[in-house]
């Protein structure tokens, strides 16, 4: 056979097939209501193996999401300039040395205040510490068209910490309690904890396309379509 065995996968379907009248009216009623701030259900897993127990048919996706969480953990976990400072917030035995090569890109972490009460960070130097990743929170596996959202989560056993026995994301959003398997989190809780990158400039690509489009729109002699044309070929 010279063709794909099957291209018809769920991800490629963009709307329900031939919605019935009833379904349309229901969805219109629903969309008429002002939506409450949306929270989504998320699962907490300590590792990929736990995910695979729940989704035995999706081992690859479980590995991928766990891998992403680990990468995000390394890149975005809160940084402390001493083990004692880290353990003061997260508890004895819950902190580890931060990898050297991730410091530069996280040098701005902590510029904003953090709900969980973690301290502000300095911006350079070695010998940094960060909490160990307790696990990760994963959004709906079947919901979207791309990979499910995830965020590393941490917990604290420090007696005086405001996040003691809570589940907290790298940027300090408390999403539940230690031991929860399912939590409800605002979409913003999945956002990366790294300090927002300062964008020094934007719009540096696209000028030639705009110029060609405008020139084409001016010349009305062409029978070809003259706006919104493809820049592919």
């Amino acid at each position, binding site marked *: 056979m010279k063709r794909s065995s099957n291209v018809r996968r769920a991800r490629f379907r963009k709307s329900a097939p031939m919605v019935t009248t009833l379904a349309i009216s229901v969805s219109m009623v629903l969309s008429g209501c002002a939506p409450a701030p949306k929270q989504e259900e998320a699962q907490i897993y300590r590792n990929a193996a736990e995910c695979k127990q729940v989704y035995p048919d999706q081992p690859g996706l479980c590995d991928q999401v766990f891998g992403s969480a680990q990468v995000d953990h390394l890149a975005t976990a809160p940084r402390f300039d001493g083990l004692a400072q880290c353990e003061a917030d997260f508890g004895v035995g819950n902190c580890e040395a931060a990898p050297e090569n991730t410091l530069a890109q996280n040098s701005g972490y902590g510029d904003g205040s953090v709900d969980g009460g973690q301290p502000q960070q300095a911006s350079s130097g070695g010998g940094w510490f960060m909490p160990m990743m307790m696990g990760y929170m994963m959004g709906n596996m079947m919901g979207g*068209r791309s990979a499910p959202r995830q965020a590393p989560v941490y917990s604290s056993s420090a007696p005086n910490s405001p996040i003691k026995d809570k589940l907290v994301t790298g940027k300090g959003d408390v999403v539940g309690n230690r031991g929860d398997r399912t939590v409800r989190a605002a979409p913003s809780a999945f956002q990366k904890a790294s300090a927002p990158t300062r964008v020094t400039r934007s719009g540096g690509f696209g000028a030639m396309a705009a110029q060609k489009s405008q020139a084409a729109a001016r010349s009305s002699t062409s029978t070809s379509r003259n706006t919104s044309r493809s820049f592919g070929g």
Partner: protein
Amino acid sequence: MQRHLVTPRSHWQAQAKEYGFHFHTMYDEPYWDESRYYAFTLDQIENDIEAPTEELHQMCLEVVEEAVNSENLMRRFAIPEAHWDLIAASWRMKEPSLYGRMDLVYDGKNPAKFLEYNADTPTSLYESAFFQWLWLEDRLKDGSIAPGSDQFNGIQEALINRFAQLKSQWPPLPLHFASCEESIEDRGTVQYLEDCAAEAGLETRYSAIEHFGLGDNDQFVDANGEDIRACFKLYPWEFMLREEFAQYIQKAQVRWLEPAWKSILSNKAILPVLWHNHKGHPNLLPAYFPDFMDTCTESKLVKKPIYSREGANIEIIDNGKVVESSGGEYGEEGVIYQGYTDLPKFGDDHALIGSWIVGDSAAGMSVREDHSRITQDLSRFVPHIILP
């Protein structure tokens, strides 16, 4: 190779809606046209399209090797000198490519002739890889084509496999997808590729190319401020290398799809170089740089800008006279001349073959029809079958 007229499926528009194929009609003109289809034999597909496509692809890669070692060629390809190293490095590092589409003239009898290689920003992908496949499946079910009919269309499987391969080679980075904000068609193509990448387990993001920003470490960032570390861009290298952010490309260290060396393949200056290297090859048309026209023996020629998209600024020249031309905004970087060859005509329509490459392998085919001899952006996409 035959064309058959057929009644379109009654539900095709509903199906297009269901699968998000929003550009089947563009600018009040039909684009997806299933009132006809083309039928090929397996022999035609395998010997006349598939095999020559892979051979031509290898011949084109040889030109990249040649060009990155030749200032003369880099000038003829109008690559800005500041970016020669970028392109040479991307080639030497063997930066992986994703896909491309060759345009071929083929009439079912004579060897296919290579017109050009859309190797950087190929479109008509979704309709080739996906919607054409659905059409075949439905037509097999309703019995309007012979049982056992097939299609040269392993494109989607090949793309997903290719993305999976890239995923295994790359560190776990999200892959950004970018296109021009204003083009619905390009957005559709990019969405499709994004879906294929997600099927392969990659994490994906979309950003309009106009929304790219520069971060404080001179890295590229998307509108959310997230670093762009790997990016598929449906936006031509020849534009990117001439725009404000061009100076940051080297430092930004993005894994680009297509990689920068594709700017050699998608450039029509490759045609005279191929002809020079393989003069008389059955799948090549004679082609010349303007300063080599004294070696040209053909009286009928097509003048093409080395950078041109969707059939813009093409002239058909017969004995020195322009007999047909298309308007447009391209050509200032230089032109080449290619020997004229007739596109096969079916009824009032000229048919052009698109032959798809994923990685280094031929993966499928599409047919476009145009009333004009110059296939442009108002051409129509027509599905095909392989006869059982």
